[in-house]
């Protein structure tokens, strides 16, 4: 079980801010592949991962990173603070 959270237009496209997912995915990329296969709104949100950023347990990470031991995965567009 892993918590997956979404922000900004990723959240809007998928239609929810957070969900708990039962997954066997080994890496972030595997998880993205799995989510893409679920429904059209996921496919739309994850169409181009180069436009996305990922954080694992609230630390910026990469799409090829391992999910072992991770409790929270976050997907969002590049930040625009400041």
């Amino acid at each position, binding site marked *: 079980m892993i918590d997956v959270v979404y922000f*900004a237009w990723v959240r809007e496209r998928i239609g929810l801010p957070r969900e708990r997912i039962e997954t066997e995915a080994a890496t972030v990329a595997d998880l993205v592949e799995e989510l893409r296969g679920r429904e059209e709104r996921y496919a739309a949100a994850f169409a181009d991962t180069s436009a996305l950023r990922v*954080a694992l347990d609230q630390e910026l990470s990469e799409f090829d990173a391992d999910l072992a031991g991770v409790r929270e995965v*976050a997907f*969002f*567009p*590049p*930040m*625009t*603070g*400041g």
Partner: protein
Amino acid sequence: MKISVQEGPFDAGAELDAFSHGRHEVGAIVSFTGIVRDRAGGLVRMEIEHYPGMTEKAIAEIAEQAKARWQLADLLVIHRHGALPLGQPIMMVATAAAHRRAAFDAAEYLMDYLKSRAPFWKKEVTRTGEHWVEATPEDEDALSRW
């Protein structure tokens, strides 16, 4: 070192005074205030989303790096989230150092990193619709200075 991620407004002048008060060891204080601006025309408000938990950690990390690198006597970061009307302060940083160059560089570093590495997202709501502000290549390029 004061770091605040908050929904409510803040008074930049009062923050600057509190930050500067009673400093005998520093010669230079720099502040930056970011204000909601009507870039395209017709802006009604700005909405700022963030990632509670990660935001505070990311800012603390950026702040610690700036403090160590420029040997700052102190620094301040305030960043708002939620709905902000035109002309309102979005965020503020302040730095205190012995010399002006360190205070300026550290403040610019904080701004560059907060912009691209702290999990905030801005949405502009205009009279004709709404859209997420996009990060620019310049935002990312700014980091290569450091």
